[in-house]
C-alpha cells in the first residue's frame, strides 16, 4: 500500500458513499475503507440472521416462522426519500438511479386525538379528512392557496407578510389556523421534529411545506419513495459510482490509527500494520473515537449531541388504521403525547422486498428525552398491534468538534432522527464545502431529447 491517495474515506454509510462517489467523479484519487465486511455501516440493511446476530447473538427462533433469511433487508435507521427532495436530485444527477429500483410508500399518516388519519394526498381526501372541521378547512385552504400563489418577485402575492422575516407564528395567526392544524402543518408536512420552528422566520418552514406538497404531487399516495431491497442499497449504489470512477474499495479493514504530523495535520491511516498516506480523510464519527474513552494525549474530535431510541418491530399484519398499507409513515406530533420531540413510525414489507410475505417491519423512533427511553416510545408501540419480536437500541448521536479544515480531518455527523434524507444531503454539501473549499455544484446530467 505505498500509493498515495487524495482522500481516504472511512466508513461506507450513505453520507460517506455519496461523498466518495462525488469526489471520484471529480477526479480525486479515493481509497474507501470500512471495518465491516459489508457496505453501509449504520445505513446497512440486514437479513434475518444478521439482525438476530446483532441484537441477540442467536439465530432467528424457528418458532416465529419468519420465513427465508434472504427475503429480509431490515434497515437499522428508518428513513424514506422525499420524491422531490435533494436525495432524488442527487440520484438523478449522478445517474446512480440506474442501479436502483424504487416504489412509492403507500401512505403518510398523522396521529391526532388518539387515532391516526391519512395526510390528504388529493383534494378529495382533504375535503373528507377528519383532521379539520369545515371552517378550519376553509382557513387551511386559504393558507395553501397563499403558498401556491406566492411569488418572490411579486409583492402583491405576499399579502403583507415578509416570510423571510416574520415568524411562522405570524403566518399561522394571519390565516387563523388552530393549534391542531399548526401541529399538522408543522410536523406532518414541514416535518419538524419539535416546535422550535414556530418562533423562527417562516421561510424554511414554508419551503418544507412546498417540498412536501411537491413530493406528494409527484406520485400520489404519499410524498415518499423507498428503494427495493432496503436502504442499504443506497450506499452500495454510490460506492459503485465511486468505483466506476476509479475509487478503490477495501472492506473488512480494521483502522488502527488515523495519523497526524506534529502540527496535528492528517498524514494517513494505519490498517493491518500498513500505513496508507493521503492528503485528506473523511469519515463517520466511529472512526474518530466516538463512544470510546480518550487515550491520554488524544484529541477530542467528536462529541455526543443527543440520543435516539429506535425499536425495530416484526409484525405479521399491517399497522391498524393504515388501510392495509404495504408501507407507511406515521407521525405522532410531540404535542399530542406531551413530548418535546415527535415520535415516528415507519413500516415496510414484502412490497419493497425487505421482508417475507405477510411480514411487516415497523420502526418506532424518537429523540431520547428522559432516563427511561423505552417508555417514551410506548405511544408508538401501542399503535402497532401484536408485535412478534422487537429489537430496541439507544444510539448516541455524534458531531465533530471542529470543521476539520486545519487538520484535513473531516468528520461527518451521525444519522439524525428525521424521517427522511434531506439532512443527509445537507451534510454532504457541508462536508464538500469543508473538504474542497467550494460549493458543491451538481452538474446537470444531460437529458437526451427524443426525436
Amino acid at each position, binding site marked *: 500500500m505505498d500509493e498515495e491517495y487524495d482522500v481516504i474515506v472511512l466508513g461506507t454509510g450513505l453520507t460517506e458513499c455519496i461523498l466518495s462517489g462525488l469526489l471520484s467523479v471529480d477526479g480525486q484519487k479515493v481509497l474507501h475503507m470500512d471495518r465491516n465486511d459489508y457496505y453501509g455501516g449504520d445505513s446497512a440493511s440486514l437479513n434475518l440472521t444478521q439482525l438476530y446476530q446483532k441484537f441477540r447473538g442467536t439465530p432467528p427462533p424457528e418458532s416465529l416462522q419468519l420465513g427465508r433469511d434472504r427475503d429480509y433487508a431490515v434497515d437499522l435507521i428508518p428513513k424514506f426519500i422525499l420524491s422531490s427532495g435533494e436525495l432524488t436530485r442527487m440520484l438523478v444527477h449522478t445517474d446512480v438511479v440506474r442501479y436502483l429500483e424504487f416504489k412509492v410508500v403507500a401512505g403518510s399518516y398523522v396521529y391526532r386525538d388518539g387515532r391516526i388519519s391519512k395526510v390528504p394526498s388529493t383534494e378529495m381526501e382533504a375535503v373528507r379528512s377528519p383532521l379539520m372541521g369545515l371552517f378550519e378547512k376553509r382557513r387551511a385552504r386559504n393558507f395553501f392557496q397563499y403558498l401556491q400563489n406566492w411569488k418572490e418577485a411579486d409583492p402583491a402575492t405576499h399579502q403583507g407578510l415578509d416570510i423571510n422575516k416574520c415568524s411562522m407564528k405570524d403566518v399561522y395567526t394571519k390565516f387563523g389556523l388552530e393549534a391542531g392544524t399548526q401541529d399538522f402543518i408543522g410536523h406532518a408536512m414541514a416535518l419538524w421534529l419539535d416546535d422550535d420552528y414556530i418562533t423562527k422566520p417562516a421561510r424554511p418552514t414554508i419551503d418544507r411545506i412546498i417540498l412536501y406538497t411537491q413530493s406528494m404531487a409527484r406520485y400520489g399516495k404519499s410524498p415518499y419513495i423507498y428503494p427495493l431491497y432496503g436502504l442499504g442499497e443506497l450506499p452500495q449504489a454510490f460506492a459503485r459510482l465511486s468505483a466506476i470512477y476509479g475509487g478503490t*474499495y477495501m472492506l473488512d479493514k480494521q483502522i488502527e490509527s488515523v495519523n497526524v504530523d506534529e502540527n496535528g495535520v492528517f498524514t494517513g491511516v494505519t490498517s493491518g500494520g500498513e500505513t496508507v498516506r493521503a492528503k485528506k480523510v473523511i469519515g463517520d464519527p466511529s472512526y474518530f473515537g466516538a463512544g470510546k474513552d480518550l487515550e491520554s494525549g488524544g484529541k477530542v474530535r467528536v462529541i455526543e449531541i443527543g440520543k435516539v431510541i429506535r425499536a425495530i418491530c416484526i409484525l405479521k399484519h399491517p399497522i391498524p388504521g393504515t388501510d392495509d398499507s404495504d408501507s407507511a409513515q406515521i407521525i405522532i406530533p410531540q404535542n399530542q403525547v406531551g413530548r418535546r420531540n415527535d415520535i415516528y413510525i415507519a413500516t415496510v414489507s414484502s412490497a419493497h422486498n425487505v421482508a417475507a410475505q405477510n411480514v411487516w417491519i415497523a420502526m418506532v423512533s424518537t429523540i431520547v428525552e428522559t432516563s427511561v427511553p423505552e417508555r417514551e416510545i410506548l405511544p408508538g408501540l401501542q399503535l402497532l398491534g401484536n408485535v412478534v419480536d422487537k429489537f430496541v437500541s439507544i444510539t448516541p448521536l455524534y458531531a465533530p468538534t471542529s470543521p476539520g479544515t486545519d487538520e484535513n480531518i473531516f468528520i461527518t455527523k451521525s444519522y439524525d432522527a428525521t424521517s427522511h434524507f434531506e439532512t443527509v444531503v445537507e451534510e454532504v454539501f457541508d462536508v464538500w464545502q469543508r473538504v474542497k473549499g467550494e460549493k458543491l455544484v451538481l452538474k446537470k*446530467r444531460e437529458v437526451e431529447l427524443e426525436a
Partner: protein
Amino acid sequence: MASEEAPVKAVQVKLVLLGEAAVGKSSLVLRFCSNDFNENTSPTIGAAFLTQKCRLENRIVKFEIWDTAGQERFHSLAPMYYRNAAAAVVVYDITKAASLEKAKAWVKELQRQANPNIVIALVGNKLDLVSDGPAKSVDEPAEATTDAEGDDSTPPPPSTTAQPSSSDSDDLRQVSTAEAETYAKESSLLFFEASAKTGANVSELFTEIAKTIPMESLAPKPAQGAAAAGGRGGRQEQGRGENVQLGEGQQAKKGGCC
C-alpha cells in the same frame, strides 16, 4: 431471421461479470459489444455498464452487462451487484491456475447470494495463448483472427485457435480443458474456453446464455415506459406494485436491434 410480421419484444436481462483482475472480463464484453480488442486495457474504470442485444429464433435478449468496476479486487463487491442478475459470466485465465480457484469461489458466492435461477457460465479466457484447442466447437472453421481491431460491426466467424508459436506456447496452459469442464458439469455451469483477442467462442457464449435463461423466471419489467405515459411533471398515478421512474431521460432510450 424473424421476418416483418410480429415484432419480437426484447427481454431485458441483467448479466454480471466476475473473475480475478486481468483475466479479461472487460475484454470479453468489448469483443461481444463492439467486436473490438485492446492489447493494453487499463483496469476497468469509467464505463461499467453496457448493453448488447442478442437475437435468437424466437426472442431478442437485451443484455444489460455489469462489469465489476474493480470492486472485486479487494473482495469488496457489493451484494447489489448480483441483485436480480439472470446470468453471470465467471471468467478465469487458462494460463493462470490460481484464477480458476478464484472463479470457483465466485461461483460459490453466486450460488449463495444470487437469484437461485441464475445461469452461470464458466469461461476460460485467453485461448489464443495456447495451441491445443478447446474442447468445444472443434468442428467450427478454424480461421484465425489475430487482429480484429479494424473489423466493423459484424462479429467475426467463430474461430478456434491459431497461434503463431504452436509448440512451446502449449506450456502456457495451466488449466486443462478437462479439469475445468468436469468442475463446470458438477456445478451445473455452462462452460466455454474463449478468446477475447480472436473472438473465438465469444458470441457463442452469450448466445448460449441467452438460450438457457428461463424466460418465465424473469421478473416482468413494467417500470420501463409504464410511468412515461403519465406525462412529465404532472401527477402520475401509480398502479399497485409498480416501480417509479425517477430519471426522466431514462425511458426515452430506444435504439434499434442489432
